[in-house]
């Protein structure tokens, strides 16, 4: 027995060497090996040149934990994941502009900008006091490089932001001088939205990489070099990311952040995450489930932050199918589902029933314009009768004149309890109005293939969710011209909707766009390509020792520069 105990200790000691030093597991890639010493050197210099101010808020480490890893890391040209984009926008990189709390665009990396009269030229003036973490200055060349890269088809930039309305490739950008850059575009609404999420990449490091190889470059996950408030320190796969405060962050933007260190941990199990939060091993738990919310509220040292997020859960109806071709049927399906009850029961009230793709906090949202198809089984039955579906053979399921039963399947992906809930509840409730629903679970990759392949479209209804940008654009979802593109699940061919979508995309002035949005919301209610379910609230569990945490629709990390730790609990 003693021998065995010794083995265990030896194992522990032997394995210690693995996590060596502050850098963690070193990358063997020559690019990283070259870049990292330069970053270390510059940071050492910057720390000397910018000593920490004498304010008790400075210092401390905050640990944030979430369920997923940050795929593609800080490589803004190839990543589409929410956590990755948040870290690029607020932690490690800098986009040109930001949203304020009121959703107005405000300067960030860009000091100012102008738009030409006809709206086809956008000129950015870049700040002159921003430096990459390896010492090079950030300038217009970086912006131009980033723009060329993301609009280059070879890069396969996954975010659609620049694909419409911007002039792609080298013709779309011109560098006037070191800090002025001109972007060419077509006149369209919310043209600055794309720039709020795109972290600018360093040309001096990535300029020589062929765009097609960019997605495999070690920059993203092994040695990202940014210019934002936090400097990358280390990344252990599927385990944690570590960032340190950037002492060289421009004083005009607030100087170095209060925190000394910020760690993002990956913990794939919800119960474990909750335990770690309750035992104070982590400070912030990103996206607990509504069932866990009460525990967080009850804990005296924790706080539950709760905000409406810009994602919505929907059931998409394939109007190519005969049972779902009639808009009246689709409206009846919505009216036959008690969405209020679902929000109450499943989300425990942490959500808002949705009636269109416009989130309730959005400036375009008009509560009066919304046509709410409230839960009304009587009206639903009436609509179905009107559309020619009645129960002719007394089996509880309606048929049309040709005898086709109103039997549909609703697919959802495995491993997602919430979507399973939606499908099963719909099954129970729609049975009441004479519709036979069969929930069908499909593995996620397979499901995506089934609904996205234009020649396949193998589904009747599908439970899905969209995350929208602040620039709302349903072109790819509902415009008839895109009907053979992957996302046209509903197969909508509605000239009114086409007209509205086109008009909205070119109306720049928000005032003038409001009535169009109102009309659009009414039209969506008519057409019901989806049954819009709800905008789930985003929940976050935060330890009270972390102050200055603001989380809203812009994201969880929006105020990370202001986060500071209560000195007493360091």
């Amino acid at each position, binding site marked *: 027995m003693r021998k*065995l105990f010794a083995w265990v200790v030896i*194992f522990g000691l032997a394995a*210690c060497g693995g996590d060596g030093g502050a850098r963690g597991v070193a990358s063997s890639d020559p690019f990283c090996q070259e870049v990292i010493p330069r970053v270390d050197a510059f940071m050492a210099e910057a720390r000397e040149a910018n000593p920490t101010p004498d304010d008790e808020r400075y210092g401390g480490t905050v640990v944030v934990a979430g369920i997923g890893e940050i795929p593609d890391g800080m490589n803004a040209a190839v990543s589409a994941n929410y956590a990755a984009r948040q870290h690029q926008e607020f932690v490690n990189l800098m986009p040109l502009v930001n949203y304020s709390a009121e959703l107005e665009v405000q300067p960030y990396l860009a000091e100012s900008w102008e738009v030409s009269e006809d709206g086809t030229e956008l000129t950015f003036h870049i700040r002159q006091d921003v430096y990459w973490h390896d010492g090079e200055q950030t300038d217009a060349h970086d912006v131009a490089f980033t723009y060329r890269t993301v609009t280059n088809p070879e890069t396969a930039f996954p*975010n659609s932001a620049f694909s419409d309305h911007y002039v792609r490739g080298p013709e779309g950008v011109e560098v006037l001088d070191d800090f002025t850059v001109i972007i060419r575009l077509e006149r369209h609404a919310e043209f600055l939205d794309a720039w709020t999420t795109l972290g600018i990449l360093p040309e001096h490091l990535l300029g020589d990489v062929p765009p*097609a190889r960019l997605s495999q470059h070690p920059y993203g996950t092994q040695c990202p070099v940014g210019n934002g408030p936090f400097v990358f320190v280390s990344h*252990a796969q599927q385990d944690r990311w570590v960032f340190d405060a950037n002492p060289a962050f421009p004083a005009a933007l607030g100087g170095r952040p209060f925190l000394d260190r910020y760690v993002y941990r990956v913990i794939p*199990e919800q119960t*474990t995450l909750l335990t770690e939060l309750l035992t104070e091993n982590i400070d912030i738990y990103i996206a607990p489930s509504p069932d866990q919310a009460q525990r967080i509220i009850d804990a005296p040292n924790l706080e539950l932050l709760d905000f409406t997020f810009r994602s919505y859960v929907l059931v998409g109806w394939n109007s190519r199918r005969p049972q779902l071709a009639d808009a009246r049927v689709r409206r009846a399906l919505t009216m036959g589902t008690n969405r209020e009850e679902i929000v109450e029961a499943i989300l425990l009230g942490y959500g808002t029933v949705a009636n269109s793709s416009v989130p309730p906090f959005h400036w375009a949202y008009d509560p009066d314009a919304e046509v709410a198809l409230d839960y009304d089984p009587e009206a639903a039955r009436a609509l179905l009768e009107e559309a020619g579906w009645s129960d002719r053979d007394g089996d509880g399921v309606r048929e049309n004149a040709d005898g086709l039963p109103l039997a549909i399947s609703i697919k959802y992906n495995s491993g997602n309890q919430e979507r399973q809930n939606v499908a099963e509840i719909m099954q129970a409730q729609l049975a009441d109005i004479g519709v036979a629903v069969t929930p069908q679970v499909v*593995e996620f*990759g397979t499901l995506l293939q089934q609904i996205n392949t234009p020649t396949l479209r193998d589904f009747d209804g599908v439970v899905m969710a969209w995350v929208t940008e602040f620039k709302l654009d349903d072109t790819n979802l509902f415009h008839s011209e895109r009907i053979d593109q992957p996302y046209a699940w509903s197969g909508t061919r509605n000239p009114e909707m086409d007209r509205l979508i086109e008009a909205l995309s070119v109306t720049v002035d928000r005032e003038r766009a409001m009535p169009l949005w109102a009309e659009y919301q009414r039209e969506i209610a008519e057409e019901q390509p989806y049954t819009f379910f709800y905008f789930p609230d985003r929940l976050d569990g935060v330890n009270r020792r972390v102050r200055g945490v603001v989380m809203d629709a812009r994201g969880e990390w929006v105020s990370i520069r202001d986060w500071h730790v209560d000195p007493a609990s360091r």
Partner: protein
Amino acid sequence: MSKYVLRRLLGAVPLVLGIATIVFFVVNLAPGDPTLYLLAPGMDADVIEQMRVNYGLDRPVYIRYVKWVGSMLTGDFGYSFTYRRPVAEVLMEFLPNTLLLTGCALAVAFAAGVVLGTIQAVRQYSALDSGLSVVLLFFYSMPSFWLALMLILTFSLFARNVWEWPLWFPASGMTSTGYPFLGFGEQVRDRLMHLVLPTASLALVLTAGIARYMRGSMLEVVRQDFVRTARAKGLPERTVVFKHALRNALIPIITLVGLYVPVLFSGAVFIEHIFAWPGMGRAIVEAIDTRDYPLVMAGSFFFAVTVVLANLLADILYAVVDPRIRYE
């Protein structure tokens, strides 16, 4: 003997090749591909197509197969889609973590299993024997992820917040956040603290199997003539059991070690998932989910090689320790 080993090794090559081929086709035939996960509204079909080109997925299957075979020979397994790094590097980063966890768990399980199995054999049919059987099998019968979660709740959450024990364990991870700043001794302690719960979860499940094996082996040995002789000679029971019987009973257990080697490398998927332990098992399962072909195939290949070698090791060990066995 060496001829036998050589023959087995040669035979292993087509075996591994066959497995690798099957894995390749099974994985590549699954519907969907890695690009599906990166889709967002507004992406053109062209962008998706470009992504697939970037991943090398546009080439026909047989060309990719040839490339795969080539990579097995050269050791260059390509780039992982999800980690954007050479697959070999990715696996090498996960491997030590898994080895640490499963190594500790197997060490504990073998130690406990041998001891408990011996006790059970010496006291066959007693209350202790039955009692131990029930207790060990109780833990063996639990779904391991449930056991892991119960351990976390008991020894991490309740121990700290509810019962306020002086000692409680962290619920996840290999090291704490402040690890790089700790002194050497504190680092060792930190690692051990993080090891306790995951190792316990795994070891509790493994011990039952080993104890039962040991019990059977011990029972067999104790009935043999040489033990009767030793007793007849008047040796104290203790010496008979521990000095004579135990050593012989351990022989088949040693070969069992060989059979548990694959567990060492494949990791324990559920435990790694629950404890956020960055290990091989979790990596491979997540790779299958995200259709990270190079990683899945390299991982499966690696696993197959370890199993084949482990079987060979078990057979060799058996021949080494038992002089009656001869392979031609």
